[in-house]
């Protein structure tokens, strides 16, 4: 079932959710908003980042003045059916990300086309993003109290919030006012009653209503306090008065009356502080459209109220319920008082209640009278007529022909022999046609037999007792046969449906899971889902960087428009289904489901039915199973890839070891020989002629260059192999700069060097070899690019845990188009001095990046280029001097 995934939303959340405080009142006008604003101002004064996202002042001056001075986020204005409406700008709040946000009236219904249909869902998203929320709520809007409120006040409650919101609240503040005070305020017109202060609203504020609502408010708050007390005791390991192992289960059917049953169960579960399950048993009977709708409504109500939803298939409701109850450790089962006629119960071996009580054992059974006073939403019971016109015609024709034949041969056959032949036909019809046709055939045959063949003929009257008995027998037997064969048939259809589901899962498992390549498997899976559900689908996968790919997988047959893609992206981040047939982002054309496996969300499956129909329970069930399987396939592939990546890494490490042990040796040894040889040659011969000295100078420079090239290449190889692991040690930045200058001293001999090290930098933790080498390379680069006698400056400063090392020169600067390319490998700017490898700066970039920092090039306004290394570092401004004294 789609509904049955309460845990999935929390898997990917690493953010600490925000705190929720609800200002609860018995009805409008008690001063909830006022109290909320007062609290918010306190928080603001205490230095907290408070923002008002949506506060309704209803033009009250006192409230308005409290709101002034609070930072506000402008509302989102939109036009719906010619009316300008304003809603909270959810995205603006999320991107502003304050510590605390004020959102008035949690029960508000958003305008169609908003991300969530209800404002409380916006609040949930804010909480999930780690933002604390203050909100207001009237007790009548609480889902589990809505029917009681309606009974008390006779005013229907349209806007409701699930009780789970209250349970999520970290704090509930009751804003209380006596009914008399409220009525006084009402009389002074200090209370806003909505745009039309109609009679219903005035009725609502009758003293006895207010007293009842007030009591309810206080009770809700008391329950919450009680629960948090018990939670607290549990956390601290104090033994308390809670009952262990209580669990309620309510059996849900297709009647709209079940909503009161569901609310009843919720209240009892709340009072017992235990979990509850809502179960629907899918039997062989075909559901009408109205029944499917009210079943869906019942299930979603139960889910909203926090039930775990289970749907199971079974022929016998009582046995199936008990099986589920035992599997889920249920202690109490709640069922509605039977509305079936007495004979129905007789036929099935007792009513549901009787059967349950007989077999329940230790499980308690509650039988609750459903409340029928609610809004009558049930459509007039449709007479179920199944069967194609063709079936009706065939059945009619055969019956007619048979009767005609009997009529001709009735003298020879005798009316007694005709009856079994009619029965035979009813049996055959039962095997061929749907139930309605069979029952019609059975009735027709009985009546025709009576009318045409039993004396007195051509009347429905029957002459003697014998014939009457014969007729009644015939009538009952033919109906029974018709019923039984038809039942067999529906069972067979149900069986086929189940088999189709199993086959589909098997097929997907076989085709997709065993496919050698993921793409082929996904394509096979996609085609299968399309055929089974008569839909077009799109698969959007996760990229290696764990964000959602902007492109759909090629196996998709549905092109996602930007709007649909944004829904898919929401599903991907939240891990919850959204779009059509759900209650989030309902305006979208497709249903979007997260491909959620145990280790994460691997993408989103978007399904859009070709014909404009919704999915029935079994189809949604199937879709759920297929989605799960597909996610499992993606997860499997992810692990296979991770495994082979690990193998590649191991191989590359072996290669790298070989490379870094033997290649340097092979390159550097002959160079050492060459250098030593040349130097000793020079020393031994002591060339006198200037030409020989010139040549010697050239050779020696070439050797120097070769040494630099080899070192650079080896450094570059290390960077590319990704094996550089910075070794962090406490270092003195000034010393580091001096060491780099000393190393580069011959290249820098023509330049002035300035050091500008911030006095507050005493010690930082970094890899001295990597950063020292980077500074050295930058100095060499600066020396190469700036004219002699100009200054090269090294600056260092530390700010907010980041060390900035800047090397500035007074050369011509860097052409703008080259600013980003200077760090590319082997990139050499036009006019580069000979002898460079084009690797120096890219080595700087590689080393700095390995260190978690960045390096950028820029031109200074006063002329010359500068290179900025920006590193995250741990620093010790005190320099540990005190421990040494």
């Amino acid at each position, binding site marked *: 079932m789609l509904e049955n995934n309460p845990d999935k939303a929390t898997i990917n959340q690493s953010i600490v959710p925000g705190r929720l405080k609800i200002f609860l009142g018995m009805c409008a006008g008690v001063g909830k908003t006022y109290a909320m604003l007062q609290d918010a101002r306190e928080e603001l004064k205490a230095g907290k980042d408070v923002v008002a996202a949506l506060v309704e002042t209803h033009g009250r001056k006192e409230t308005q003045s409290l709101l002034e001075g609070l930072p506000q986020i402008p509302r989102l204005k939109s036009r719906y059916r010619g009316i300008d409406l304003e809603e909270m700008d959810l995205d603006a709040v999320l991107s502003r990300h304050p510590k605390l946000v004020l959102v008035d009236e949690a029960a508000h219904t958003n305008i169609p086309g908003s991300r969530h249909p209800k404002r409380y869902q916006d609040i949930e998203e804010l909480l999930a993003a780690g933002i604390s929320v203050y909100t207001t709520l009237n007790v009548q809007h609480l889902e589990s109290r809505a029917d009681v409120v309606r009974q008390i006040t006779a005013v229907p409650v349209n806007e409701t919030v699930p009780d789970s919101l209250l349970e999520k609240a970290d704090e509930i503040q009751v804003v209380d006012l006596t009914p008399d005070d409220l009525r006084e305020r009402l009389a002074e017109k200090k209370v806003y009653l909505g745009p039309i202060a109609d009679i219903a609203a005035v009725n609502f504020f009758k003293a006895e209503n207010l007293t009842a609502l007030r009591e309810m408010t206080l009770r809700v708050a008391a329950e919450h306090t009680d629960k948090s007390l018990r939670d607290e005791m549990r956390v601290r390991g104090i033994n308390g008065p809670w009952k262990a192992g209580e669990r309620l289960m309510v059996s849900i059917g297709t009647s709209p009356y079940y909503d009161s049953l569901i609310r009843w169960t919720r209240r009892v579960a709340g009072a017992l502080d235990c979990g509850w399950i809502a179960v629907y048993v899918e039997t062989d009977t075909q559901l009408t459209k109205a029944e499917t709708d009210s079943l869906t409504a019942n299930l979603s109500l139960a889910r909203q109220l926090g039930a775990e939803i289970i749907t199971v298939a079974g022929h016998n409701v009582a046995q199936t319920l008990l099986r589920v109850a035992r599997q889920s450790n249920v202690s109490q089962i709640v069922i509605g008082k039977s509305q079936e006629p007495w004979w129905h119960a007789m036929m099935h071996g007792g009513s549901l209640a009787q059967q349950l009580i007989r077999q329940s054992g230790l499980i308690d059974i509650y039988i609750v009278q459903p409340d029928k006073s609610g809004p009558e939403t049930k459509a007039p019971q449709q007479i179920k007529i199944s069967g194609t016109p063709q079936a009706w015609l065939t059945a009619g024709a055969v019956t007619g022909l048979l009767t005609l034949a009997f009529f001709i041969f009735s003298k020879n056959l005798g009316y007694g022999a005709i009856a079994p032949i009619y029965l035979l036909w009813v049996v055959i019809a039962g095997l061929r046609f749907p139930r309605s046709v069979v029952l019609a055939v059975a009735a027709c045959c009985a009546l025709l037999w009576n009318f045409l063949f039993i004396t007195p003929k051509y009347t429905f009257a029957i002459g003697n007792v014998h014939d009457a008995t014969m007729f009644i027998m015939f009538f009952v037997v033919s109906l029974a046969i018709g019923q039984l064969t038809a039942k067999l048939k529906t069972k067979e259809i149900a069986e086929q449906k189940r088999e189709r589901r199993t086959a589909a899962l098997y097929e997907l498992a076989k085709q997709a899971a065993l496919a050698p390549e993921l793409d082929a498997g996904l394509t096979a899976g996609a085609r299968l889902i399309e055929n089974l559900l008569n839909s077009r689908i799109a698969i959007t996968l996760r990229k290696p960087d764990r964000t959602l790919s902007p492109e759909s997988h090629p196996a998709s047959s549905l092109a996602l428009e930007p709007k649909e893609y944004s829904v898919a992206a929401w599903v991907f981040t939240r891990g919850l289904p959204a779009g059509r047939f759900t209650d989030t982002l309902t305006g979208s054309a497709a249903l979007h489901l997260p491909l959620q496996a145990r280790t994460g969300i691997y993408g989103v499956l978007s399904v859009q039915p070709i014909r404009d129909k919704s999915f029935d329970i079994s189809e949604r069930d199937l879709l759920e199973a297929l989605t799960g399987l597909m996610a499992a396939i993606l997860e499997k592939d992810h692990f296979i890839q991770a495994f082979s990546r690990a193998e590649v890494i191991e191989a590359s490490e072996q290669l790298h070891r070989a490379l870094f042990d033997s290649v*340097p*040796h092979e390159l*550097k*040894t*002959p*160079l*050492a*020989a*060459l*250098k*030593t*040889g040349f*130097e*000793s040659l020079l*020393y*031994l011969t002591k060339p006198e002629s200037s030409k020989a000295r010139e040549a010697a100078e050239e050779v020696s420079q070439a*050797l120097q260059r070769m*040494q630099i090239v080899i070192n650079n290449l080896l450094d570059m190889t290390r960077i590319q192999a990704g094996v550089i692991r910075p*070794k962090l*040690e*406490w*270092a*003195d930045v*000034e*010393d*580091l700069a*001096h*060491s780099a*200058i*000393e190393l580069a*001293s011959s290249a820098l001999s023509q330049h002035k*060097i300035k*050091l500008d090290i911030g006095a507050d930098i*005493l*010690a930082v933790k970094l890899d*001295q*070899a990597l950063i*020292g080498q980077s500074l050295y390379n930058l100095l060499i680069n600066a020396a190469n690019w700036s004219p002699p006698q100009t200054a090269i400056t090294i600056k260092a400063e530390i700010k907010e845990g980041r060390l900035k090392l800047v090397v500035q020169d007074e050369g011509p600067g860097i052409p703008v188009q080259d600013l980003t390319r200077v760090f590319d490998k082997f990139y050499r700017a036009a006019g580069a001095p000979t002898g460079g490898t084009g690797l120096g700066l890219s080595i700087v970039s590689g080393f700095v990046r390995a260190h978690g920092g960045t390096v950028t090039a820029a031109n200074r306004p006063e002329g010359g280029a500068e290179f900025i290394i920006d590193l995250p570092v741990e620093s*010790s401004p005190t*320099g*540990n*001097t005190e*421990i*040494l004294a």
Partner: protein
Amino acid sequence: MKPRNKALIIDDEKAIRRLLTLVLTEHGYQVFEAETAEEGMNQAAQRKPDVILLDLGLPDMDGQTALRRLREWCTVPVLVVSVRSDTDEKVKALNSGADDYITKPFDVPELLARLQAIQRRAGDTEKESVFTAGPLFIDYESRTVKVNNKVVNLSVIEYSLLRLLAQHQGKVITHKQLLRDVWGTVAEDRSQYLRVYMTHLRKKIETTPRKRMIRTEVGIGYRLVI
């Protein structure tokens, strides 16, 4: 004239061996060659060299092991000559008893300077009462330090650090060695002590920022070069 210094070269590269022999002979050394670690040990025992040049990449034994085995019975100064340039390798060699470390390809004058520096320790620098080099003057008896003839006041620890570096002038002293000598073995892993005191010491004695007397060997230690 002093008797000729004896140098032993242990390296498996024939070209390097021959060229080093050429250079060292020219600079007054009597040179012996060994191709393997085993042969090197034998030569060291028989010839009693004044200095050993050791390559770490030997065919029969890991260079670090060879170094440790040599140090079990022999105190001759050892200069490691290797292509391996990573800091860890250098620190390991120095802590296993090598006196200094130079990477291939090297500059010949640099090599000669290092050889001289490590041999000086074998001489009796510790018994000398006065140190003079460049602008630096140290009187070990009166604990006086002068730079450019101006007296510099050093704390006890700063003085101990400078004396240690001066007594091993030109030779790298690892962090561990400095810490052990100045603070004792308990402080061996507290290189931040050293860093702070070295900064103070430098502020007092360094005169030319482009050519500092105390050089930092990144990740290894310090060296006094004048």
